[in-house]
């Protein structure tokens, strides 16, 4: 092996090694793990919106059914008021569906983002490039058999090229990932934060409804003793204090969004993310949403 070629190969190997060790911030593996969790979150979010919407429709239907029953045989003006609510509430639910569809489309964009992030970070590209370089070296060896005698540090050049190219591509990936996180992370963080905000708002709305019902029951209970009690009093009382199951799905989704936010931010700041908490939160969302979906289909 000529001295020049040996020097060139050594310089290449050193450059690749230095580039890897010089990479500050998150490793490709850390980024890939967060990206995979991001993909899971982004595929679960639309399912959460679907079950929350189904729950809102069910609640409104039950409310309107009760009002319609109460208005039966009553003056026309009372029935007209309930009829108006039937129409206007249906319009309102249609608007809500449009907003939820916006959130679902946004979640699908997040999914595309995390899929690309995972592809760049998971090393599939570097392995393919390494294999292509090894193949090219083999062909070169067939053409010039003397090449197989070239070795660096006792290792044949043919066996050296593939890993070297793979390492170079992996280094390039990490460098691009670090650059990407510096420039694009704020917008991705905002995207996760917006999904989180929506889950937080929907959870607040559910809790506000439950609190109002419980507060009203307490207020009414003060006067109830002196008045005739309806036959359904005990059952209605129990229903008042029963927790709304949809809050479980929203709490889980909110926790998952917060954990994803933390883990993604730590890719940028170089902190050590709590990946286990994120994965547990995602598992819980999946389990709770699956229960809702099976109940809806029955």
């Amino acid at each position: 092996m000529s001295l020049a070629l040996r020097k060139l190969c050594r310089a290449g190997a050193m450059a690749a090694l230095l580039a890897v060790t010089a990479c500050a911030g998150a490793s490709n593996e850390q980024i890939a793990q967060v990206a995979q969790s991001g993909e899971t979150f982004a595929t679960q979010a639309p399912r959460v919106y679907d079950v929350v919407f189904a729950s809102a429709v069910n609640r409104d239907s039950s409310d309107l059914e009760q009002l319609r029953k109460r208005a039966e045989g009553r003056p026309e003006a009372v029935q007209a008021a309930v009829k108006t609510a039937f129409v206007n509430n249906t319009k309102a639910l249609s608007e809500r569906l449009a907003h939820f569809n916006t959130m679902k489309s946004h979640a699908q964009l997040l999914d595309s983002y995390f899929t690309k992030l995972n592809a760049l970070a998971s090393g599939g590209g570097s392995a393919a490039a390494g294999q292509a370089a090894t193949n090219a070296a083999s062909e070169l060896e067939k053409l010039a058999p003397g090449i197989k005698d070239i070795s660096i540090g006792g290792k044949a050049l043919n066996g050296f090229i593939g890993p070297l190219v793979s390492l170079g591509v992996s280094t390039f990936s990490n460098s691009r990932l670090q650059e990407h996180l510096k420039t694009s992370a704020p917008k991705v963080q905002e995207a996760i934060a917006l999904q989180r905000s929506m889950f937080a708002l929907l959870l607040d709305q559910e809790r506000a409804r439950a609190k109002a019902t419980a507060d009203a029951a307490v207020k009414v209970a003060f006067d109830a003793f002196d008045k005739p009690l309806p036959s359904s009093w005990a059952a209605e009382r129990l229903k008042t204090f029963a927790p709304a199951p949809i809050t479980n799905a929203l709490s889980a989704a909110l926790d998952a969004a917060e954990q994803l936010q933390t883990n993604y931010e730590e890719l940028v700041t170089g902190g050590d993310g709590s990946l286990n908490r994120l994965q547990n939160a995602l598992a819980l969302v999946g389990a709770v949403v699956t229960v809702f979906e099976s109940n809806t289909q029955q």
Partner: protein
Amino acid sequence: MSGATGMDEQQKLNDAKAQMLATKATLDDPTYIAGLTQDQQDDAIVKSASLSTAIEKIENTQIAVIADKVSANSAELQKATADLAAANAQIQNATALLNAAGSLLSIVGRIVAL
């Protein structure tokens, strides 16, 4: 709309909704209804129906505030995805180039063998 003003408006909306929810919950409470005269019950139905729609609308307004921001963020998210796609494409191009070099060397080898 400034951030502070927006927050104030959201808070007002939330307070108004809480009041409406409390009123509607009372109007729909079977124990409360049982103690009303017929006219009062009619009035309760009309008010409850009207509040039902008003609450749905307020909730939609709160949801729309975030959904509008999401629409604006979507374009930025697409740009971030395109940036990653470009990096992935560069690696694929390099791999394709190495594959082409391997193929070319193979062909040259066969020609030389002839």
